[in-house]
């Protein structure tokens, strides 16, 4: 029996691998520099070609348009905005609209998701089945469909402003949205805010004191009545002394719509509802998986210490489950933010609709505007990831 000689490894590949791994001294270093140089050159060519072509076709380029007047209006603006403001302002209005729908959506999706997950794990048969049904129904229907459902079928069915549903004569619900009294700052607002701040700080100090007492001497001090008293009492006192912090502007029907008051537009409500409910179904499954990943023994150990089910979950299971939950939960948060661009379908003025829609077609500067928009979504996603990683890191450190 003869042994066949093994073919020598291809010299070039081996040498290249050696060079690129940084162990080949100057030769490898030169190769890496060459590689970077080629990348830079390709990048330069792409930019230079785009520029030359834009110029030869006489398509305007550059970011000068950001200083120009936009000349159109937006239905929801969190910062003061009118048609005579610039495209930069339009960008900010759109960005804030995207952020507000994402943040509120993330908050509700998380709350609903956790509740549904706990419901699904509950020993209560009915609760578990309802939660299971929720997850299966919601996550299997397309999101755009759900947004349109809330917008057209639910909110669209509300009466017109003249026949609006009124609560106590100050809240009005109609197909133009929810109109609520608008708080207007009075001189009493300053002291009122300070009172609340002081109450919060004192409450936190109290909590620290109570914990120390608990750990040092095993004495359990009930602090919530004091906290309650502080939070309600202090602001009440300042209001009595300095006058009410705010007065409310009551909306009234004038012409086609309500005048005065603040309004939550139905597009915002429909989008937030649909995004929260849809994402909650995925979060519920992630949370359930996280909780199930904690060994059953932990739960039993908690119970045998005499803790109640709620306390076992809160103190023992969920902190451990969070390690498993956090990474996929971050994904869901990012998805929710990106899914908010479906706003275009119902006319909610988010960044894509206002900036990459109206502003784009009015200026015609697709490359710049799409570049900015992509950059912004990338930034929002990276910031969200960073916050979640930081939270995960703190959690890990706390447990270590």
């Amino acid at each position: 029996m003869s042994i066949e000689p093994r073919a020598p490894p291809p010299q070039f590949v081996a040498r290249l691998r050696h060079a690129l791994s940084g162990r080949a001294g100057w030769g490898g270093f030169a190769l890496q520099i060459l590689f970077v140089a080629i990348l830079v050159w390709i990048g330069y060519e792409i930019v230079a070609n785009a520029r030359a072509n834009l110029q030869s076709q006489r398509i305007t380029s550059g970011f000068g348009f950001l200083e120009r007047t936009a000349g159109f209006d937006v239905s929801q603006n969190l910062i003061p905005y009118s048609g005579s403001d610039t495209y930069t302002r339009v960008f900010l209005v759109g960005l804030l609209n995207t952020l507000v729908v994402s943040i509120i959506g993330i908050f509700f999706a998380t709350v609903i998701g956790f509740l549904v997950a706990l419901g699904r794990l509950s020993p209560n048969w009915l609760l578990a089945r309802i939660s299971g049904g929720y997850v299966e129904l919601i996550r299997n229907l397309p999101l755009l469909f759900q947004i349109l459902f809330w917008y057209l079928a639910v909110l669209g069915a509300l009466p017109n402003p003249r026949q609006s549903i009124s609560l106590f004569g100050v809240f009005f619900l109609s197909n133009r949205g929810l109109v609520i009294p608008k708080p207007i700052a009075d001189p009493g607002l300053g002291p009122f805010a300070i009172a609340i701040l002081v109450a919060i700080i004192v409450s936190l100090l109290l909590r620290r004191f109570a914990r120390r007492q608990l750990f040092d001497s095993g004495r359990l001090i009930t602090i919530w009545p004091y906290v309650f008293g502080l939070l309600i009492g202090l602001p009440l006192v300042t209001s009595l002394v300095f006058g009410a912090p705010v007065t409310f502007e009551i909306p009234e029907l004038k012409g086609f719509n309500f005048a005065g008051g603040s309004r939550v537009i139905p597009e915002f409500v429909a989008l937030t509802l649909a995004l929260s409910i849809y994402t909650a179904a995925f979060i519920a499954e992630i949370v359930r998986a996280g909780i199930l990943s904690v060994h059953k023994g932990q739960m039993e150990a908690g119970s045998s210490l005499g803790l109640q089910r709620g306390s076992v979950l809160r103190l023992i299971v969920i902190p451990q489950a969070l390690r498993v939950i956090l990474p996929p939960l971050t994904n869901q948060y990012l998805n929710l933010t990106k899914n908010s661009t479906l706003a275009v379908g119902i006319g909610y003025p988010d960044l894509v609709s206002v900036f990459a829609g109206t502003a784009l077609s009015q200026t015609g500067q697709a490359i710049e505007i799409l570049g900015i928009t992509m950059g912004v979504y990338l930034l929002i996603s990276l910031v969200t990831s960073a916050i979640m990683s930081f939270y995960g890191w703190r959690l890990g450190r706390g447990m270590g």
Partner: protein
Amino acid sequence: MKRVSLVFTLALAAGLSTQAATAQTLKTIKDRGMLSCGVSQGLPGFSSPDDKGNWTGLDVDICRAVAAAIFNDPTKIKFVPLSAKDRFTALQSGEIDVLSRNTTWTLSRDTTLGANFTGVTYYDGQGFLVKKSLKVNSALELNSASVCVQTGTTTEQNLADYFKSNNMKYEVIAFNTADEAVKAYESGRCDVFTTDVSGLYAERLKLANPADHAVLPEVISKEPLGPMVRHGDDQWFDLVKWVLFAMVDAEELGVTQKNVDDMAKSDKPELKRLFGTDGNFGEQLGVTKDWVSRIVKAVGNYGESFDRNVGAGSKLGIARGLNQLWSKGGIQYAPPIR
């Protein structure tokens, strides 16, 4: 030569074709055997597909006329339906050869988009559609109204200007497509739907009860609608421009789809020039001598196309108004073929 190979990377990265810069549109179309025409996503009277998928409308007829002049066949067209906000990018990137999609001619669109308007196919203006039950008779009574519009149009800016200059408040809800905007208007989300008046008549047909809605008398803007082609290819620009002129000239000289063959035998000097029996005008444009009779046989003259699609002979029933020939009290006017 490496620069050329990177062109493709660029076209992908920037959505820009360098083919356009080399300016051989007519040759490219002839080689391809098909004209690529950008139209709306369905605006009755201007460009909309029927139940068999055939596109019809005034804007569509412009493309059909161009195809007839090039191929003697008005069906050699690929129609590309475009939303208002995608239309210019599609033209810039070379996806379409001509954009014939109720697009308003404005200075900034003419100068910054790398494209040219070839003429005015329809003189329009912006108006308002309201429910009759609101009992509104004038746009000046619309203070505090909610207004639905399609995003990516000149409409949004006109609207802002109009309400501002009349010191009225309003709320604007901008939708991606006209259909979504009309649906929101119909569901009661808005009191008013606004777009070009011709569009209002067209969209009103789609409503459940067209008779319950009225177009207000005010016309708040000038909206000259016309086809667009890319910068940098003057031969192609000339051809598309003169196809429309030929349709208007044909109407002025009384040439119709029916009598085109008889008229072609006429001795009148201007008819001889029109039909190419005298001179080589078609060849100067890069097509054949009989280009005008090809166009008129395919889609008729301007007036016939107008009547069939948006005028008295159509469901829209819009009066000729400004779009009547200059000789009959309108402002449609074409330079002479000579």
